[in-house]
Structure formats: structure tokens, C-alpha cells
């Protein structure tokens, strides 16, 4: 395999809560510059998989690599050692456990949005985006308090302004984030994620609650930001239309395990996927 390492490489990730396998032995690759989707019926474990990648949960077993370097790694130990029901219990046992906190992962260059929008509710649109720039600012608490970081602060504000302008949100800059209409809140959340200068953007059901027209706009928007910001995008979605329209490659999971993978056309015709979705899905 001489091709470039994928931006995100997930290997044998398993997440077991008590006796429940929320994610079971999931492996996938997200190559640079592509839009990859993870789909599955409700409760299939998509968000859990996201949370394992972004450090919100510590996976029970498995490895996540970012740009070829191990980012998350764990194996069943402690109480889990006996309870573990998955495979490859020994595969990662010889390497040290890596469990970074979410902010460390964001620092590496992965940003995310949330299924149930999580904007900072007491802040304005402008401040929401500006605050996301905090992580990468060259400053410390003293320089910030005594305003010796004025140049840095100015840069952050200008960049925020530019970002809002690009996302068509500038006219709402002084409004409270939570007072925006739903669709704009979604867009603001993406803008906030972009403010952390990510290489990889994880979108958790970006079209949830949108009507077909808004969904179509969103599809265009996602493709647009991928180009403009030179991003790789990994998303979870319910809306088949959206997924089929923009994805380069699709992984399907049900009950925590992968049931299919392939390009959109192949997935569309895959009997296992249709079975999993029939009667279960909202579509």
C-alpha cells in the first residue's frame, strides 16, 4: 500500500457499557480531502463511535490514529478485563494506553459539532466563534489580562469577523447565539468548529430537524467548506439524500457492528442496509 496514510484511521474500536456493546469492533479510514459518512439506524452506535474518536468516551478496546500517529489506544483492563465480550482483547494490550481529553484532540486538528446543538448560550454569535479561537491564540493569562496580547486579540477578532462574513452570519454578530433560527444555529456551530482551524471536521447529524430545502443548502455548504478550508469531513447522518449526494464513501453500522461499506451507489442497493433501515428508520 503505497498510498498516503488516511487522516483518520480507526481500528477495532469497541465500546462496551456494562454488558452492552455500543460499538463493536469498528474499523474505518477517512482519507484526506474526502467526505466520509457513517450511517445506521437510531441507536446503532454512531454518536458513541464519534465520542470515542473525540475523547468524550474512552473506548474499551482499539486504536485511533490521526495522520498516521496513534491518538487513542486502549485495551480491556481492570474491571473490564473479565467482562469484555468483544474481539482482539490482546491486540493492544502490549502498548501503553493513550486517552487524551477532548481538548487535546481538538488541538491536534479535529473539530466537531453536536447532534443537539451546544452553543454557548449566554454569548453572542461573534463571541461564540471568537472563543473557539482561544485555543490557538499565542497568549497566556497575564498577557491577556494586561492586554499585551493586543495584536493577537486583534488578529482573532479580524479572523472571526472574516469567518462570520464567509458563513453569511455577520449580520447576526451581536445577537445571542440561542436567539438565531435553528438552521443558522447549525451553521454557527459549524463556523465555531472551523474557528479551531481543524484538518478534520466531524459533523454529528448536521441535517437533523431540517426541511428538504435547508438540507439541500446544507449539502452545498458542506462541499463548499471542504474546498475552502481544505478539510476532510467525517459525518454521521440520517438523511439518506444528503449522505448519498455528498459522500465519497459510506460505512453502515447497526447494533454497534459494521454491516456494510462502499461507495454511495453500492450502499443504496445493499440488501443488508435496506433490511436494517426498513421499519426502523424514520426515512
Amino acid at each position, binding site marked *: 500500500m503505497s498510498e498516503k496514510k488516511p487522516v483518520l484511521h480507526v481500528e477495532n474500536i469497541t465500546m462496551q457499557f456494562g454488558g452492552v456493546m455500543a460499538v463493536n469492533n469498528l474499523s474505518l479510514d477517512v482519507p484526506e480531502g474526502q467526505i466520509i459518512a457513517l450511517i445506521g439506524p437510531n441507536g446503532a452506535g454512531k454518536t458513541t463511535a464519534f*465520542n470515542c474518536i473525540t475523547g*468524550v468516551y474512552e473506548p474499551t478496546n482499539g486504536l485511533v490514529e490521526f495522520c498516521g500517529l496513534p491518538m487513542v489506544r486502549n485495551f480491556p483492563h481492570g474491571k473490564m478485563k473479565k467482562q469484555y465480550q468483544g474481539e482482539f482483547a490482546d491486540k493492544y494490550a502490549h502498548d501503553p494506553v493513550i486517552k487524551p481529553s477532548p481538548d487535546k484532540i481538538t488541538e491536534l486538528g479535529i473539530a466537531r459539532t*453536536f447532534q443537539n446543538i451546544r452553543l454557548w448560550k449566554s454569548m453572542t454569535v461573534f463571541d461564540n466563534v471568537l472563543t473557539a479561537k482561544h485555543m490557538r491564540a499565542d497568549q497566556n493569562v497575564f498577557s491577556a489580562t494586561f492586554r499585551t496580547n493586543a495584536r493577537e486579540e486583534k488578529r482573532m477578532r479580524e479572523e472571526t469577523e472574516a469567518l462570520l462574513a464567509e458563513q453569511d452570519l455577520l449580520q447576526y454578530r451581536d445577537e445571542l447565539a440561542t436567539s438565531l433560527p435553528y438552521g443558522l444555529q447549525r451553521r454557527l456551530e459549524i463556523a465555531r468548529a472551523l474557528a479551531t482551524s481543524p484538518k478534520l471536521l466531524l459533523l454529528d447529524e448536521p441535517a437533523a430537524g431540517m426541511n428538504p430545502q435547508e438540507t439541500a443548502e446544507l449539502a452545498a455548504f458542506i462541499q463548499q467548506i471542504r474546498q475552502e478550508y481544505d478539510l476532510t469531513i467525517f459525518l454521521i447522518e440520517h438523511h439518506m439524500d444528503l449522505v448519498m449526494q455528498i459522500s465519497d464513501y459510506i460505512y453502515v453500522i447497526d447494533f454497534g457492528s459494521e454491516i456494510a461499506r462502499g461507495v454511495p451507489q453500492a450502499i443504496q442497493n445493499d440488501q443488508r442496509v435496506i433490511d436494517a433501515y426498513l421499519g426502523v428508520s424514520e426515512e
Partner: protein
Amino acid sequence: MSAFIQAKLPYLLSGISVGGQYALIAIGYTMVYGILRLINFAHGDVFMVAGLLMVYLTTAMPMYLSIPLVVAVTVALGFTIERVAYKPLRSAPRMSVMISAIGVSYLLQNCALYFTGGLAQIYPAIPWLSDSVTIGGATTKIVTLVTPVLTVALVFALVLFIQKTKIGMAMRAVSRDFETSQLMGIKINSVISMTFVIGCFLAAVGSLLYFTNYPSVVPTSGAMPGLKAFVAAVFGGIGSIPGAVIGAFIIGICENIIKGLGSNWTVFSDAFTFVLLIIILLVKPTGIFGEKATDKV
């Protein structure tokens, strides 16, 4: 050996007794917290007021009348506090309700100060309960022995009440999900009132036992037992009734063992309670029986 027991037994006895009294107060904290997510700072002061009421009522009427009256008035007080000070703030930020609780606590203490003039009031001796008794060479009051038994019996009755009755089930539902229960047609206000009524009933009983053992009531009498009981509730996992009881007994016993360790340690008997609490919280951040709170992401 028997000399050793004779020397050490009193510590254990008073530990169990103190624990039982903390437990009765702690239940009030834990139940209110379970339902309203409110640290009811005024609870310790309700306990103190029950003590004062007893002092004043016994001067006017015989004991068999004043005891039920004390319990009734305390329960009415708890009910009133909830209606006046907490209910109007149901939609306000949590901090405001807590401040209201601190305000009620100030008010009760200051009223007590005003009426008693700040002088310690001597609690009347309740026949039989106040008598001395000797066990294994250690002398103590009968109330010391009665307290743990009564506490366990009351808790048992309370658990039955919550498991079996309709209002008990409603309480459990409200403590699990306040909003949904409201949508499901549970009369939230009567459930909350009931919680305060039960909590204050137990506080009144607790005050009878406590002040019989330590027969002096001052306006700040409720503060320390209140704080300790609250610690006990957190220790056991706030919101959990068995947790509060077990936490109370552990704290009561540990505290008295520390006091028995010698002069360099007695200084830290209160501090030790908190050290124990912090250690527990670090190992189990939500107390022994507390439910793990997970943020849904």
C-alpha cells in the same frame, strides 16, 4: 479485655447515637435534594426551631400534648417555608433558590435569637428517655440506645412508603425526571409539599432525640448538626435515602473514634469528617450510593 471494652464502648455508643440523629436530619436533606436539586440550608434550623418549640410548649402544657404539637407545628413550618420561600422561585436559577434557603436559615436563627434573647434554653427532660442506664460498664442515657433503633424503624417505614404508596411512586418519578413527571400529570406541588412534610417530621423526631441527649437549645444549635447531616447525605450519595443513613452512621462513629484517639487528634474531629468526605468523593465523585451523572453528548 473487658477493661478495654469498658474504656472504648462509650465512644462507639455515642457514635451510634450521634449517627442516628444525623441520619434523621440527613433524610430531609437528601429527599429535598432528590426532588428539587436544592440544598435546603434551612433544614438544620427547622430542627432547632422544633427544639425551641418543645422548650416553650412544655411550660404551658403536659408532655403528652406538647410532643405531638411540636411535631405538627414543625411540619406546618416546613410546609410554609416551601410555599413561601421556594415555590415562587421554581423557575428561577438554582442559585437563587439556594440563596432563599440561606435567607430562611438566617431568618429562623434571628427570630430565635430575638425570642430567646440568645440565652441557652434548657430542654425539658422527657420521662424514661432521659434516664441513665449502664451497659458493659459504660453509663449513658436510654435515648442513646433508642435512637438507632428508632432511626432504622423510621427509615424502613419511609422506604416502604416510597415503594408502595401512590404518592411515594410519584416522588420517585419526580426525582428521576422533574419535567416529564409534570407532563405525565403528576401534581408536582403536592409531591414537593409531601417531601417537605416528611423531611420536617423526621427533623422534629430527630430534635426530640437529639435535644434529650444534649439538652441545650441556642439559635445556632441547628447549624452544626445540619452541616454534618448534609455531609452525611453527600457522603452516602445525595438523593439516596439508605445512603444518607449509612453515611450518617459512618460519620457519627468516626467522629467519636477520633475524639477518643488522644489530645492531638481531638482538634481535628470535625476536620476529619470533611477529610473522609473528600476522600470518598475523589474515589466515587457522587457518593457511595449516588447515581453516576453522565452528560448526554
